[in-house]
């Protein structure tokens, strides 16, 4: 059932070019080499399989739009705060061009989409990051949209689900981007004070400023298999310590073992488990 929704060629309002884009990609590349098992997988197979390698279960990246289709009840998603876009606060050389390219590549205004949705009939606030937009680095817009999503959750007394993927802070916004870590963490505290459920879903990769702020502050932390999650990137660590990193280092399986996350879920299981969790929190904090 999920599968059908996923490959259904439905017009998807917030990412108007996504179908066209997918068609283009399929036309250009009819097979992909799986980084997990090196086998060649046809793009049709991948799409039918929620972009999970049927042989080794490697989870390929998916767009925010696909993620929303995957977990939200069909047609339930209503985007809010669509109008926000980044400006070059610091006059950082080349930032405008980067933003433009990211927009062209992803058909997105910025690296996160936020809105109302329902999952298994439960009203929630849903935020989804999209790594095609500048590696979903967090600048002013991502920080602001996360905070507003949290505020919507508080206003409507709904749970919030945030699907993360991010390379870290948006360096082109300097300290302003770093401060988004504090800003979003402060917002999550308001959520806690309001007694509202916050579930984060960590997807590959979630590192740097996003991992060390709202992503790791959820009540319940779910991760996709093999997702790389950590503060420092593996390259930086390798360079600092001058030695090889252990196998599966910073992967979600490693994080589960080290007590950092609650559950690893294959892509196809996420919606059902979210429904179950939302059922269990139905009463909110009215005990």
């Amino acid at each position: 059932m999920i599968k059908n929704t996923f490959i259904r060629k439905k017009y998807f309002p917030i990412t108007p070019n996504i179908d066209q884009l997918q068609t283009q990609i399929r036309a250009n590349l009819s097979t992909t080499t799986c980084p997990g098992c090196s086998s060649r997988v046809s793009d049709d197979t991948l799409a039918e399989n929620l972009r999970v390698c049927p042989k080794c279960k490697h989870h390929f990246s998916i767009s925010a739009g696909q993620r929303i289709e995957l977990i939200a009840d069909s047609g339930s998603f209503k985007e809010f705060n669509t109008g926000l876009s980044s400006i070059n606060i610091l006059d950082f050389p080349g930032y405008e061009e980067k933003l433009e390219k990211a927009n062209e590549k992803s058909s997105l205004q910025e690296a996160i989409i936020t809105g109302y949705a329902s999952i298994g009939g439960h009203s929630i606030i849903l935020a989804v990051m999209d790594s095609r937009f500048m590696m979903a680095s967090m600048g002013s817009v991502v920080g602001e949209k996360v905070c507003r999503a949290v505020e919507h959750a508080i206003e409507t007394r709904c749970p919030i689900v945030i699907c993360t993927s991010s390379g870290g802070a948006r360096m082109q916004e300097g300290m302003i981007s770093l401060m988004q870590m504090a800003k979003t963490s402060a917002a999550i505290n308001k959520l806690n004070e309001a007694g509202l459920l916050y579930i984060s879903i960590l997807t590959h990769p979630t590192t740097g400023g996003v991992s060390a702020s709202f992503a790791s502050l959820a009540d319940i932390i779910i991760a996709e298999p093999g997702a790389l999650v950590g503060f420092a990137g593996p390259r930086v660590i390798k360079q600092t310590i001058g030695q090889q990193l252990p196998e599966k280092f910073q992967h979600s399986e490693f994080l589960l073992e080290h007590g950092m996350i609650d559950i690893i879920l294959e892509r196809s299981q996420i919606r059902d488990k979210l429904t179950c969790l939302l059922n269990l929190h139905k009463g909110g904090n009215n005990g």
Partner: protein
Amino acid sequence: MVKRQFDYEQKIKDLKGKLEELNDLSKNMQFDLSNEIEILEQKIQEDRETRYQNLEPWEKVLLSRNPERPGAVDYIAALCDDWVELHGDRCFSEDAAIIAGIGSFEGQPLTILGYRKGKNTKENLLFNFGMPNPEGYRKIERLLRQAEKFNRPVLTFIDTPGAYPGIGAEERGQAWSISKVLMTMASLKVPVLAVVTGEGGSGGALTLAVSDRLLMLSNAVFSVATPEACASILWKDLERVEEMAMAMKITAQDLFGLDIVDEIIAEPVGGAHLNYEATIAEVKTAIKKHLSDIIARDRDELLAERYRKLRNIGRFNE
């Protein structure tokens, strides 16, 4: 070639040496050049002052990293009548990269938290170059909660390249330990004053900067990542760090302009490390002023304003 150290002081020293030689020579030869030499000396002094008024951002990075600058330990020793250092995260380990304890500043008990860099190789190894592991952040977390229990204001000193990028640090949840401190600091029910005394590097430094007032020494810097890291990642060119340091707006003056810093504490000409006494006196004055301000404020209002300030950081089109 990228400048790897700031050697302007050496040049001044050389110049002054030459001037002295000239003076000695002229005296031996019975010339009276004392007037001219005095003018020259004054000129050098003026040039030096102008030079320090106009440091390039990258030069400030180099200055801010000078291991001889006063650090948290020096400020605590100079500012506190009583001081008791406390240790441990109650979970895994003591982390010497974080100095933490209770001090009395002009009769006011404070929880004081800071990064601790070494002044020599031995100390650097001991303090891990001021780079905390998760245990350091968990020690901070513990002592913040204790400050809250005793309704004790918090004072922090920031000078770190950032959180340690090591295997163990990731295994034990570096990201988790940092985000928790950020959240706690944002909502801590006591006044929090933060002073950036040297290098503020990335999320690992931000933990202690979330505050009611953020002060910065005039040669201190604060950046999302080191200019080296940014130049290498964004431009794939380590040689362009000077340009990157400029583009990133990381100086106290830049950040004051961006409303992130509340006050700049003037360092003596030549930098904090050349005159501990003067530096500490300025820092003391600034801490006294802001601390008494935030302690006097209505607590709910103070907390609301701390949140509002954080909430409003960022600019975008809508």
